[in-house]
């Protein structure tokens, strides 16, 4: 018996699907739509099938859950699941379909607890009810919001047309401000049955009720002492929440009894806007997801669309040089991100700004290179489909760097070589000496915010957070892309899963990135002159289908689920553009990690997850 089980966890995707089909011939069917893959599961059997997928087939890691509204195409809603194995390999895609009027699917939180926030998001944006979800509330918008905005028949206040470019702007050239069309002069749209008399803000009371705080909480301690629980709101305006993030913490004395993350304060409607945009148009928007590592976001999206494109006729993959450039940018971004996050982690620990300023110095050097190459320090918008925006310039010169009235001017390859071979290693050594064995740092971080490996996997955490718990899962190795298979690097992993391990893992990752960069530079020299810009990069003709492109972002696994439904001659817009944001899903683990610790530890634990709100709230 054991042998059979061990075998099954090695089955590839199609064999796994066959096995499931044999077991549930009626409930499971192949997804036969053009360009689609995976299986469609009858919602009534979803629980059992999911259990089998997890326990028998070994897909222990639920990467992404999302909804899609197929109004006008098939008139149903679909919930799409991507499950992976932490041992590696591609994702198993399974879907559940439900009617649009009263969409209902069983919740999979009991199978993969990491589905928690993602199901809440699908409920919030699509109105899909997940039966059996322990706490099905809105997550990004507020309670009382009118409608479910990602439904295809829901229109925003400034709605103009289904697809960009809007006829009025191009070729028409009719430009007016959206405010002018709205009597209120604002981005608002009220339902027709608005009753101002009954208007009250329910968003907060529901939140507190969800925490069980609507009633007086008076617990009797074992020694008969009556204590009150205290509710403390951290955020949305708080220097240590790394953006507009809020935590509602219930305290028992100084100890945390429960913690509820509240988000959506930066919900900028990426996905709705992404469905109006054309494929290329979305590229700069991906910059603004994880705005510290824009280059890596670009890459994930480019990979997803390339997957779609590769089913069409005109597609040719990126050249070797383009791949090298991509890896160069992405690894530099990893260093930028970890410098930033370690600096701020130390900041949260009370080492106010000094470590951060040290780290930022190096970061600025890399940003100079980004600026010279892509034209922008932060929002690089650099990748294109099947290529990049342009080759690296010969010289880095920038008036932005006027120092003592001199314009800085370097040869790019020299600049990079010096940075990779000398500056960065030197800096990392120095930072290491100053911090790693620092007594205070260890005191505050060792054994704090522990996340066990099983929990880390079950909660779908990813990136350094998952690896610090001892799971060496890295998409660069688990499901390789670009030229990573030929590069030599290690995946650092921790043992104890505490904050200190996360610190070490990030540190080690920077060293590994430097190691990758050292291998990239000679490849760049060799491939000089190869084309990196392709026509398809700017005028993609995307065939019908779905794709899930995922990359190992500095913060974890970033996935793009893109569905294309238009005909290749019509408007080129994604039907669905979903971002599986690592920060968002990692936050599922925040509550469990904090319980039992002191208030002062909350900010450090949060800092050790390394979230960015642009991506959390999208």
């Amino acid at each position, binding site marked *: 018996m054991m042998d059979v089980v061990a075998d099954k966890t090695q089955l590839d995707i199609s064999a796994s699907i066959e096995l499931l089909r044999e077991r549930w011939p009626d409930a499971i069917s192949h997804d036969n739509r053009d360009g689609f893959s995976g299986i469609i599961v009858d919602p009534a059997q979803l629980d059992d099938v999911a259990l089998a997928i997890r326990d028998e087939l070994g897909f222990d890691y639920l990467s992404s859950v999302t909804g899609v509204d197929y109004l006008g195409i098939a008139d149903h809603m679909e919930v799409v699941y991507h499950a992976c194995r932490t041992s590696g390999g591609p994702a198993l895609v399974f879907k559940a379909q439900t009617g649009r009027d009263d969409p209902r699917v069983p919740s999979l939180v009991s199978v993969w607890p990491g589905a928690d926030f993602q199901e809440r998001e699908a409920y919030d944006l699509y109105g899909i009810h997940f039966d059996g979800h322990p706490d099905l509330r809105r997550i990004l918008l507020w309670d009382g919001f009118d409608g479910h905005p990602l439904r295809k028949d829901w229109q925003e206040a400034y709605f103009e047309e289904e697809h960009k470019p809007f006829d009025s702007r191009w070729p028409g050239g009719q430009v007016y401000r959206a405010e002018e069309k709205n009597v209120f002069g604002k981005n608002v749209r009220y339902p027709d049955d608005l009753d101002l008399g009954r208007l009250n803000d329910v968003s907060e009371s529901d939140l507190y009720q969800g925490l069980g705080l609507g009633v007086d909480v008076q617990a009797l301690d074992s020694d008969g002492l009556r204590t009150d629980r205290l509710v403390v709101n951290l955020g949305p305006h*708080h220097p240590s929440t790394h953006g507009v993030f809020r935590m509602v913490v219930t305290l028992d004395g100084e100890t945390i009894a429960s913690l509820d993350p509240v988000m959506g304060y930066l919900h900028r409607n990426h996905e709705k806007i992404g469905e109006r945009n054309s494929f290329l148009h979305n590229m700069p928007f991906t910059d*603004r997801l994880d705005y510290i590592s824009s280059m890596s976001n670009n890459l994930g999206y480019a990979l997803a669309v390339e997957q779609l494109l590769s089913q069409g006729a005109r597609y040719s993959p990126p050249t070797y040089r383009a791949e090298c450039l991509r890896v160069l940018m992405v690894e530099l971004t990893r260093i930028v991100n970890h410098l930033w996050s370690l600096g701020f982690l130390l900041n949260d620990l009370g080492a106010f700004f000094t470590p951060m300023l040290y780290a930022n110095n190096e970061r600025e050097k890399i940003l100079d290179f980004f600026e010279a190459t892509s034209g922008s320090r*932060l929002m690089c918008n650099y990748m294109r489909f099947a290529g990049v925006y342009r080759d690296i310039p010969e010289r880095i010169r920038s008036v932005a760097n006027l120092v003592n009235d001199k314009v800085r001017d370097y040869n790019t390859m020299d600049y990079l070589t010096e940075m990779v071979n000398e500056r960065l290693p030197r800096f990392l050594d120095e930072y290491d000496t100053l911090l790693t064995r620092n007594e205070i740092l260890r005191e505050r971080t060792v054994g704090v915010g522990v996340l066990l490996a099983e929990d880390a996997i079950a909660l779908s955490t990813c990136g350094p957070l998952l690896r610090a718990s001892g799971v060496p899962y890295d998409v660069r190795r688990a499901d390789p892309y670009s030229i990573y298979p030929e590069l030599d690097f290690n995946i650092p992993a921790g043992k104890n899963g505490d904050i200190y391990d996360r610190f070490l893992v990030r540190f080690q990752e920077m060293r590994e990135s430097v190691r990758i960069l050292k291998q990239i530079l000679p490849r760049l020299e060799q491939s000089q002159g190869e084309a990196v810009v392709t026509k398809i990069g700017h005028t993609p003709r995307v065939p019908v289908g779905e794709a899930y492109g995922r990359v190992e972002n500095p913060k974890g696994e970033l996935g793009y689920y893109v569905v294309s439904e238009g005909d290749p001659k019509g408007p080129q817009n994604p039907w669905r553009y979903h971002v599986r944001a690592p920060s968002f899903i990692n936050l599922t683990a925040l509550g469990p990690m904090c319980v039992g610790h002191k208030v002062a530890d909350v900010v450090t634990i949060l800092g050790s997850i390394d979230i960015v709100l642009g991506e959390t709230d999208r």
Partner: protein
Amino acid sequence: MAQTDLRALQDTEFPVPEELQANIAITSLDKIYNWSRRSSMWPLLFGLACCAIEMIGTAASRFDFSRFGFEVMRGSPRQSDLMIVSGTVTKKMIVPIVRLYNQMPEPKYVLAMGACASGGGPFKEGYNVVSGVDKYLPVDVYVPGCPPTPQALLYGMITLQKKIDGQSLANLDDVPWYGVGPSEPTPVPVLGPDIIDPRQMELIREQAQQAALEAPFGARELPAWVNPAEVAQETTVVEETQDGAEDGIDPATAARIRKREEAMARLAARRAAKGGQ
């Protein structure tokens, strides 16, 4: 204090002896008041989105806005004079933002950093996005960019200092906080089915009543749009018949418009051809 600083303060025709100029300045109340205010503006430590990263970059050692008197950022609104709205303002976030603004002691200033805070930016059409913080708060300086570079932000902050230099205590429009009694707090928006600005309650009620009578709720009919190119074409025709009469548009513009017309015609033809296939 540097010697030149006191000299800069001098604002009177009364002569101060040369040897005392380093120590004594005779000046007007306006001048010394503005000078002291503009030279120690503490921004609120408050980041919203991507622009906040550039704001932190500006505060960090390379660009360092402390050099200009923005000494430290304070976490508490009660200790800050300047709110840098650095990023996309969402409907969910505008509520705390207005509350923070109300908690700041006067005199207080608002700087809208980036396209989002100034007018909605790339996310303007989003259903949860406020198209510019100035829909709710008075803004003193707008800094364009997405994100503005640190240099641009510094320029914006210096512009704010210039604005303060020009203010006068005699003009209550400039410095409303010297009026009689405490000033009114900005009303805090309410999250209903959509965000509700208390200042617009009357208008919303009116519209709701009209909507009950089947009129469109909140939509405004814009006057029919006139294509400037078409107008120009008519003028060009006139111009041709009159052979360069004085009421025609200048030839360069006419040529540009003609070119554009031709391009549009070509595009239309291409589209028609495509549709025919």
